[in-house]
C-alpha cells in the first residue's frame, strides 16, 4: 500500500521541495517523477502477482477516502507515471533557459500527483477532489506563459468548459451516493434503473468535457498556447485522459442505453474532430484535434462494450501523442511558431527528429506493426462485434481514414519547404524524451496480450476488420499525402476550421451564462455580504465611541467601575448558587 501511496507522494514531495528550495526545480521534479514511476511499476508487479490493496483514509464522516489498487488502476498508474517521467525529461530540455521554471515544474509535479490520485481513487469524494484539482492544475499550466496575449482567455475558456462539464460529475456523484448510501465507487455499481442511466449520462457529460468530445471540443485547440510539454502531458495521460479513464473505471455502471450514447458520441467526435484536424493550419492545433478524435475512438470502444480495447488505445495513444507533441515542440523551438506556414521544411533539417515524428505519426495512423495498429484494430473489431456495429463500424472506419489523412498531411507540410537549420537549446534532453516516447509508441502494441490478461477483459480481434481498417488507414495516408486540405474537404473546411461552431458554438451555451452568473455572484457579494460586514464594523465602532465616554482616565473612577462590575458578578454568582441549592 505504501508503495502505491508513493506514486502520489513522490510528485507531491517534489512539489513541496520545489516550492521550498526554489532552486534546481527540474532535478527535484525528475526525482519525484522517478519515485512515482518506480513505485507504480512495483505496484503493478505486485498486482500482477495477484495482490489487491485498498486503504480507507479518514475523510468525511461516514465517507472515508479510499484508495484502491487493482489491475486496472495499477495499469493506469504506470501509464501516467511513465508518461509523466518522460515528459519531465523532455521538459527539462524544453524549458532550458525559459522563465518561471520553478513555477512550471511545481505545477507539473502537482499535476502528476493529482492525476495519480484520480487514478487510484477508490471513492467518489476523493475522485471528485482529484478531478477538480486536475482542472485547476491544467488551468494554471495552460495559463503558464501569461505574458502572452491569448493565454489567459484560453485558460479561462478551458476551465469554463471543463467546469461546466464537471457539474455532470457532481450531480452523478450525488445521485449515486444518495442511491447506494456509500461513496465507494465499486459499491455504487449496484445502482440500477433510471438512476443508473441518469448517472451514466451525467458521467458521460463530465467525461466529454474533459476529453474534449463533441460538442465540448472547442477548448482543446485553444489550450495549445500552453508550453508543449504541458500539452503533451495534458493530452496523453492527464487532463484529457481523465475523461476516458473515468468512463473506463465506471464501465460496469453504464447501462446499455448509456453505452449506445457513449459509442455514438465517440464515433461522431472521432469523425468530426478528424475533419477538423485535416483542416487545421497549425501543427499543434492539428494534434489537438486528433487527440479529440482519438479519444472519440476510445469512447467508441467503450460504447461497443470493450473497455479493455479503450484502455489499450489509451495507453498506445498516450505514447504516440506525447511523442508527436515532443517532436512538434522541437520544431516549434526551431522555428518559433507552430503554424505550418512557418514550419515548412523543418522536417528536413532535423532528420532524426522527423524520423521519430514520422514513426509516431504512422503509429497513430495505425500502420502495422506499430502500436496504433493493434489498438485501432482492436477498436474497429470492437465496433464490428458490438450490437450496433452497423452504425459504429462506419464511424470507426471513417475516423481511421481521417487519422491517416491528417497524419500524412502533417508529415507532408513538415517536409515540404526549404531548410534553415538553427541550433535549439536543450536539444539533448528533448531528444531523450522524444526518443524514448517514440520507442514506446513502437512497442506498446505488443503488450496487448499481457494487458488483456492482466485486467481480465478480452480485447477483440477480427480478420475482416483488420484488413478493412488497415486499408482505410493506408487510403487515408495516401489521400493526405497527395491532396491538399481544400481538395479533400472543399466547402467543409471553413466550417471545420473553427471547429463546427454552430451559432457561436458552445461558447454561447457555456461561457456567457457562466460569466453572467459570475457577475451576479459578484454583485451579491459586494451588495449583500460586504454590506452586512460593513454594517457590523460600523456598529462596533459606534459602540466603542459610546464606551469611550465611560473612560474618564481618572483611575479611581475606573476602579470604582471595576468594583461595581465585580459586585454584579458576585450577585449573579450568588443567585446562581441559590438556584443551585
Amino acid at each position, binding site marked *: 500500500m505504501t508503495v502505491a501511496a508513493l506514486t502520489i507522494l513522490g510528485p507531491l514531495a517534489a512539489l513541496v521541495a520545489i516550492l521550498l528550495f526554489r532552486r534546481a526545480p527540474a532535478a527535484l521534479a525528475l526525482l519525484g517523477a522517478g519515485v512515482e514511476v518506480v513505485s507504480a511499476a512495483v505496484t503493478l508487479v505486485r498486482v500482477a502477482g495477484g495482490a489487491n490493496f485498498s486503504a480507507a483514509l479518514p475523510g468525511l464522516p461516514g465517507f472515508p477516502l479510499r484508495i484502491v489498487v487493482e489491475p486496472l488502476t495499477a495499469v493506469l498508474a504506470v501509464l501516467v507515471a511513465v508518461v509523466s517521467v518522460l515528459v519531465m525529461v523532455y521538459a527539462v530540455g524544453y524549458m532550458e533557459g525559459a522563465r518561471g521554471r520553478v513555477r512550471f515544474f511545481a505545477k507539473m509535479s502537482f499535476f502528476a500527483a493529482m492525476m495519480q490520485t484520480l487514478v487510484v481513487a477508490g471513492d467518489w469524494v476523493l475522485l471528485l477532489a482529484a478531478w477538480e484539482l486536475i482542472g485547476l492544475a491544467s488551468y494554471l499550466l495552460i495559463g503558464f506563459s501569461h505574458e502572452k496575449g491569448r493565454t489567459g482567455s484560453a485558460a479561462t475558456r478551458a476551465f469554463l468548459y471543463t467546469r461546466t462539464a464537471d457539474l455532470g460529475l457532481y450531480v452523478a456523484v450525488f445521485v449515486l451516493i444518495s442511491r447506494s448510501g456509500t461513496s465507494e465507487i465499486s459499491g455504487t455499481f449496484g445502482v440500477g434503473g433510471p438512476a443508473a442511466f441518469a448517472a451514466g449520462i451525467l458521467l458521460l457529460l463530465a467525461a466529454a468535457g474533459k476529453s474534449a468530445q463533441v460538442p465540448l471540443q472547442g477548448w482543446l485547440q485553444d489550450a495549445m498556447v500552453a508550453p508543449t510539454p504541458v500539452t503533451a502531458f495534458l493530452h496523453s495521460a492527464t487532463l484529457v485522459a481523465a475523461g476516458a479513464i473515468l468512463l473506463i473505471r465506471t464501465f460496469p455502471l453504464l447501462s446499455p442505453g448509456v453505452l449506445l450514447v457513449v459509442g455514438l458520441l465517440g464515433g461522431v467526435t472521432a469523425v468530426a474532430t478528424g475533419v477538423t484536424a485535416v483542416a487545421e493550419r497549425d501543427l499543434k492545433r492539428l494534434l489537438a484535434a486528433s487527440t479529440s478524435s482519438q479519444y472519440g475512438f476510445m469512447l467508441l470502444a467503450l460504447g461497443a462494450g470493450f473497455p479493455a480495447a479503450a484502455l489499450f488505445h489509451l495507453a498506445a495513444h498516450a505514447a504516440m501523442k506525447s511523442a508527436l507533441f515532443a517532436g512538434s515542440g522541437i520544431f516549434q523551438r526551431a522555428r518559433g511558431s507552430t503554424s505550418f506556414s512557418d514550419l515548412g521544411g523543418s522536417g528536413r533539417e532535423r532528420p532524426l527528429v522527423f524520423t521519430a515524428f514520422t514513426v509516431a505519426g504512422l503509429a497513430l495512423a495505425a500502420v502495422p506493426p506499430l502500436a496504433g495498429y493493434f489498438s485501432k484494430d482492436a477498436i474497429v473489431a470492437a465496433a464490428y462485434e458490438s450490437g450496433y456495429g452497423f452504425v459504429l463500424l462506419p464511424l470507426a472506419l471513417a475516423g481511421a481514414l481521417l487519422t491517416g489523412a491528417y497524419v500524412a498531411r502533417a508529415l507532408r507540410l513538415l517536409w515540404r519547404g526549404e531548410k534553415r537549420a538553427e541550433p535549439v537549446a536543450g536539444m539533448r534532453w528533448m531528444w531523450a524524451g522524444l526518443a524514448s516516447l517514440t520507442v514506446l509508441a513502437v512497442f506498446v502494441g505488443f503488450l496487448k496480450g499481457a494487458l488483456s490478461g492482466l485486467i481480465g477483459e478480452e480485447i477483440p480481434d477480427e480478420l475482416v476488420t483488420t484488413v478493412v481498417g488497415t486499408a482505410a488507414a493506408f487510403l487515408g495516408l495516401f489521400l493526405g499525402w497527395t491532396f491538399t486540405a481544400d481538395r479533400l474537404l472543399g466547402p467543409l473546411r471553413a466550417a471545420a476550421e473553427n471547429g463546427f461552431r454552430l451559432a457561436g458554438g458552445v461558447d454561447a451555451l457555456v461561457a456567457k451564462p457562466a460569466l453572467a452568473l459570475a457577475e451576479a455572484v459578484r454583485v451579491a457579494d459586494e451588495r449583500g455580504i460586504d454590506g452586512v460586514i460593513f454594517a457590523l464594523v460600523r456598529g462596533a465602532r459606534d459602540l466603542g465611541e459610546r464606551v469611550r465616554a465611560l473612560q474618564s482616565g481618572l483611575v*479611581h*473612577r475606573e476602579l*470604582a467601575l471595576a*468594583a461595581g462590575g465585580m*459586585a454584579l458578578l*458576585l450577585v449573579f454568582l450568588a443567585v446562581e448558587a441559590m438556584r443551585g441549592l
Partner: protein
Amino acid sequence: MAQAFFTGFFGLAAIWFGVVVFRTSSMVRSALALLFSQAAIGAMFLAMQTEFLGVLQIMMMATEMAIMAIFMVMYMMDPGGLGGMDMTHQKRLSIAAGIFGGAAAVAVSLLGGWGTVGPSTMPEAQVAALGEELLGRSMLVFETAGITILTAMIAATAVAIERRR
C-alpha cells in the same frame, strides 16, 4: 485552639496595620505599615502550618514594601508626612464599597458550608511536595510566571528610563 488563637491574633495585627496604612499621613509610615500587615499575613500562614509560603511571604514583602516606600518618597517629596494635605476622594463611595465588599466576604465565609477539615502535613514533606508540584505538574505555570516577571521588569525599566534625544 491555639492555632485558631494565633491565626486570629496575626489576623488582627494584619487588619490593624492595614487600617494604619490609610490612616497615617506619612508615606513611609503607610508603606511600612503595609509591610507589617503583609508580614502578619505571612505569620498567619505560619500559624496555619504553611511554613514555606509564610517565610517566603515575610521575606518578599520586606523588600517590596521598602522599595514602595522609596518610590513613595521619590514621588511625593513629603518629608515625614508633615504636609497635612488630604489625599483621598470619593470617600463615601469608597467606604460603602469597602464595607459592602468586606461584609459580603464575611457573610460568605461565615454562611458558606465548608467541608471537613483535612489533616496537616509535616513542613519538610510540604516543601518537598511543593517542589515536586512546581517542577512537575505546574512547571509550565511556574515558568510562565518567571518569564512574565522578567518581561515586566524589562518593560517597566524601558518605560521608566529617561528618554535621551
